[in-house]
């Protein structure tokens, strides 16, 4: 299974292709390479964050509260109204996927050694801009103008690396080489 490093490499590779195609005036080739690059940057972040969540989910269950456990495992928290657990909450087997930004916020809040994530800061603002582009690609609509330029893919790559670095520093206490 590819790791976040592989996804970043793929994203860089598609970015280079897009740049080259753009210089040669091959608009269609450039566009599809930009789409691939931007999505792969997002996937790299997802991969890194999901694996970090899985690390914590591997700990004994009672080390976390039920809502935390539900978030870590991306499973639904449900209220039992029958059976032996009636009247209690439990983490069910039903998947409930969470937004990447929620997972980042949780990891930093819980394991960031008391540091906070500055949502008004440059990094988070850039992250939200990349997320917007990514949503436009994955949920295309006639009403969107989905035009991508090289800078969008370049920004996505930089944001992915910066987010991975920031979370690893806050949670693991060390910056990883990218």
């Amino acid at each position: 299974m590819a790791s976040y490093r592989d996804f970043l490499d793929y994203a860089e590779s598609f970015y280079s292709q897009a740049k080259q195609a753009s210089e040669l005036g091959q608009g269609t080739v450039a566009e599809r390479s930009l789409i691939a690059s931007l999505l792969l940057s997002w996937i790299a972040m997802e991969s890194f964050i999901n694996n970090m969540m899985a690390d914590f989910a591997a700990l004994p269950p009672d080390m976390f509260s039920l809502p935390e456990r539900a978030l870590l495992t991306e499973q639904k928290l449900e209220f039992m109204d029958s059976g032996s657990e009636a009247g209690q909450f439990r983490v069910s087997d039903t998947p409930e996927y969470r937004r990447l930004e929620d997972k980042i916020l949780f990891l930093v809040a819980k394991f960031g050694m008391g540091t906070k994530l500055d949502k008004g800061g440059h990094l988070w603002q850039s992250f939200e801009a990349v997320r917007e582009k990514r949503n436009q690609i994955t949920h295309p609509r006639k009403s969107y103008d989905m035009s991508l330029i090289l800078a969008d893919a370049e920004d996505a790559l930089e944001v992915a690396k910066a987010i991975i670095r920031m979370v690893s520093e806050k949670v693991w206490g060390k910056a990883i080489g990218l």
Partner: protein
Amino acid sequence: MQILFDSGAKHNPNVETEVNQFLAEVKTREQESNSPIIIYQDGKKGSYYIKCTIPAKVVCNFLDLNARLDPTNDASYRANRELLLKHHTYLRMRTDAEEGREFHDLIVEYSKVYNPGKPLKVWGGQHRSKAIQEALEVKDVSRDHGFRVYFGLGKEQRTDLALVSNTNISVSNDLFDRQLEETLVGTQLREWCVRVGLLNQGEDFPDQASRSERISVQLARTFLVNFFRGEAEGAKLDERELDRHVYEPYLCQSGAFLDPEYEEVIRRLGKGLWDNPQLIQSGKAFALLHQTQRDAVEKGKDIEKRKGFKNKALTASVLTGWSFVAGLLQSHPQRLNNLFQIPKATREFPDPLNAKGMSTFHHDEDEATYRGLGTRSSMKDRQRMAQVFLAKSTSPDTCLDKGLLNKAVSQVRAIRSWKSGYSPL
């Protein structure tokens, strides 16, 4: 013939008597030229020695290449490293000797306590001595060679001489370990390894572990130290607490000094250490795991016959992790029993330790150059392997598949983060 004590040597009549005996038996060039023989004394250890020149045709019959650290103990094995008679350096030495090269500063001890027919026990220059012997035997070449002959050595002086002589030829730490073990501790560690099945009867620790497929002195010591460290730690933890810690298996130092942790275990537990039933049981279980892994790789169809795969159990991180957890679980018998069960092999991996799966393992925190689990001796890898065996101990029929490796390493990473930065609700 005149025998004098050097100005830096304290007069010792016993040594003088031994020197006289030596000169009566071995004819040196100094005797022929009626030059005085001077007895020197080493300033650090107080050992007495003379310098002399002896022709090959005289000395060859007296040389003993199987010098022992403990002359009075028949269980004491040959102390020097194995002769490398096909090594290019040795072949060059032999050619040189055959062409008349004269060697100097060969280090020998005069002793008739064992093998009295060959009283010159070689401590430094065993390859040169062998080359001199072969040149005489094969080409009838006899030249004069320079010797330092030691007399009346005590155990500590002999070990020091062996270490210093071997330092000159840059031998491995494994040989130092073997020599120190026998001198300062005895033969018990080797006997313990034979008893549990980690060495065969009559087998000794290797003088160069990287070339051998046997357990080294360093690893055998490490096994013992970790068992007792783990045992002490486990006694403080209840069942629920076991999986909430990152443990730090220890790797004994190797080389010219006895590892302090090992020394402490020996001092604290005394002779009872070697008969400790729990330690013996764990040693046997580990030996069985090692043998099963070897058999699986040797006989398995779908696995590369790599030495590293075959001897996976003897890599530092695997051995330290396993022995620590074996100690840790002494207070938790059910989980100990689960640990002792050989991990199941599957169609995907035929060996119990899943050597290939370990070698391709990679966590997101690892650098791109990381070579996989159970390949290095770093603390990070030792911690991870301890967690792997701890996870294995949760049920009797667990196999070391990718899921278990992932879970164990995730736990190590997550517990570290938890302990350093968790903010409760």
